[in-house]
């Protein structure tokens, strides 16, 4: 499978996936969010528009677990813009293990006032237009999004461009001859390595912001202030 991807430019593959995707019968609201072509592989990092995303979930298995909250911030031209942030609590409370909600310090009232999964996902898709997605450990976010699309519309995978900051750490460790297995690549540990401030409070939004800062710091460390293209970023983050 890996060989197949290598043979073809992933951007071309994705572009084709997107064309196929647009032929599927979907609500126009979702469909229209994917009409724009995906970002050009030659675009420079400092010109990129990113959507940095984080989900809080009850567990790691999309078929059994639920999304509790989702948060994101946008990054334009290397600047994280707090004016362009979003945070949803999801009101699937009846299914939520009470224990988890307590651990997450989410009180039942908040969940009641929360949004429906459909509403949150639709909002997320519309914000994905012209944005490259950035997450720390894409398995969760991508897993839950794909599972949602599968359940709801029978679509297996959304044609989105993902950058995974956790994968960048693995790439960096490989490149510098570090120990890829014992290295702690959890967000807090990685941020510590980059001497980024310790954020003591956590929620989906704060973690998305923490990921955004980490991504900027990673690129600054790897490429100093030399120009770097999206294609390169994509390669090191898979």
């Amino acid at each position, binding site marked *: 499978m890996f060989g197949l991807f290598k043979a073809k430019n992933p951007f071309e593959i994705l572009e084709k996936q997107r064309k196929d995707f647009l032929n599927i019968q979907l609500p126009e609201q979702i469909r229209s969010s994917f009409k724009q072509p995906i970002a050009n592989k030659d675009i420079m990092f400092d010109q990129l528009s990113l959507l940095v995303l984080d989900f809080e979930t009850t567990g790691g298995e999309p078929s059994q677990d639920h999304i509790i909250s989702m948060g994101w911030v946008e990054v334009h031209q290397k600047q994280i813009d707090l004016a362009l942030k979003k945070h949803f609590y999801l009101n699937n409370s009846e299914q939520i293990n009470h224990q988890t909600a307590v651990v997450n310090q989410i009180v039942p009232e908040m969940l009641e006032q929360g949004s429906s999964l459909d509403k949150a996902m639709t909002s997320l898709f519309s914000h994905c237009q012209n944005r490259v997605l950035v997450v*720390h450990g894409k398995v969760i976010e991508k897993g839950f999004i794909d599972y949602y699309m599968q359940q709801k519309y029978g679509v297996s995978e959304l044609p989105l461009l993902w950058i995974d900051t956790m994968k960048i750490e693995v790439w960096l460790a490989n490149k510098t001859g570090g120990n890829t297995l014992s290295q702690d690549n959890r967000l807090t540990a990685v941020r510590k390595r980059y001497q980024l*401030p310790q954020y003591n409070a956590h929620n989906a939004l704060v973690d998305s912001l923490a990921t955004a*800062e980490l991504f900027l710091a990673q690129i600054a460390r790897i490429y100093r202030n030399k120009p770097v293209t999206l294609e390169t970023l994509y390669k090191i983050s898979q």
Partner: protein
Amino acid sequence: MMALCGALAVYIKRLCYKGFYLIYIAGFIMSEALIPNIELFIANIDPFSRLPASLMQKVTSTVKITYLAKGEVIASPKNEQDKYLFIVKTGAVEQRLLDGSLRGRLEEDDVFGFSLFSSSETRYQITAIENALLYMVPAKTIYHIQSHYPEYAQHFTAKPEDRIHSAVESTWSDMGDSSFFNRVSQVCSDKFVEVQSDTPIFQVATRMREQSTSCAVVKNQGQLVGIVTDTDMIERVIVAQKSTQLPISEIMSGLPITTTPDASVFDAAVCMMEKNIKHLPILENAQVTGLLSLYQLFQNHRIQAVYLINKIKKSQDEAELARYMPEREQVFLALANDKVPADLISTLLSIIMDTVNQRLIEIAIARLGAAPCDFCWIASGSHARKEANLLSDQDSAIILSDQSTDKDKVYFRHLAMIVTKGMDLCGYELCSGKFMAVTAKWCQPLSIWKEYYKKWVRSPDYERLLNLSVFLDTRVIYGNQQYRQTLVNEFKEMTAEPIFLSKLVRDAVENRAPLGIFHKLVLTKNEKNEKTLNIKRYGINIIVDLARIYALSAKSDTCNTSERLLAANKAGLIDDATLKNILSAYNFLKSFRFSYQFDMLSKGLTPSNHIDPDYFGSFERKHIKDAFRLIDNWQQFTKMKFS
């Protein structure tokens, strides 16, 4: 398999956070702060720390965050949208002016970019000297605060002088009714009764009792002729066993010292301290319209200063004086703790020093017999300028009558010895430069002093310049006032000559104010960092020296630095804006020094002028930088003006 590992890792990542949650959540979720980390951080950074929580939330929601790699440059803003106020979250950046000279280095918690908002913007380039995470508050947000919340506007102004002014105001002046910057008329009058001079003592006492006041003013034919306090009633009536049937004029204090409604509270307080009185009638068109008492102005323990002055005046010998001196430190601690303005603290410390000095001269005269000829005792240096602090040493001199003989000089050497030793015993260290009356050179007849000044003014080489700068600040502590005045008048024209002044300026611009604090070091102009900040040498003294030059140019007699600046402003040598800037910077540095010395004393340490950079919080770092910048600009301007 890989995917599973990844999923597991991500999930573990989430679980590990949970431990931290408990501490924070409740408060933040309630206040709906979605990004508490950033909000909390910015809310602790001056000037944002002054904003209410609701406004802080709005500010935070407009913030942008960027990360600079080492060596990366921030382009100077091309339009309004590119203008930001920057807060350094981690790492460090450097500002360089277009000629390449260093403007400042900024590290964690530092704020910069204010000047980008001003029309006369200072052009500089920002380069990351370490990888740096920066929070950026858009200009639009700053403008919004300025226009919608005028009460906070001055903290966000582009002008360092305005920022430092508001910093001084917000930390150091007591804003209450007794604020020392108010007019006397703005302070509530203390209660008092008005009686006629022929009223029997017991009737006056009864009325004071009825009104529950401790003071009565005495009038005769509509004129204020005296004042009586409850202490007088005890001391002069009960203790002296006088009849209470006698008229009050028998025991009143005649010719009372008064003030006017438009006098400043500061001056009124100083007047009471100097004259050792506790009540000051307010006179308006010959009518007593109110009464100011020290108890009102110095609540609680501040009144200690008055008792100390009283005790000093009644001391019998050096040993008794020295016993009281630890109270001087207590007085200082109480004043500094109450954030009394620095000017008032140093004035009070100067009055205490004056009183000790005068009392010692009296003690010496009592021991040696009456002075054989006319003389005056001069204080010089900070004591003369009424700018004493706890570290002030003795600078003194004696001017003798020209009729004095060699034998008389022996008498005065003895007198000077007693006084100097006594001062030393009281904690006023001997002057390391030996500028003391006890040195034969500085105990001379008027004619010799005239020769000294002539020589110094004509060809001021290094040593002469040093002598001169010490003796250009003089004040008579005891004896014939005329001698000092004669010297001042005689050289007034010569010391206002541009050629002479340019020499003083050359000396005064040798020390330059540092750029700020960076990485626990003091960042200097020549980029050679220092371990501690000598706030006296590189801050306060620069202002003192320049103020002296301007005052000489304006031919003003006054010695006090603030008064000198005001005099120079009146003479048109310093414009209003510069006056305000320099006074703000001066007050800030003096207040800062006092609060540093206060903290040192509170910790049981010996206070000094050398401040450890660790001592600086974000607030002080920011404002001291502003103060230094103002001083430096003024210094460079003065250099041009007088050369």
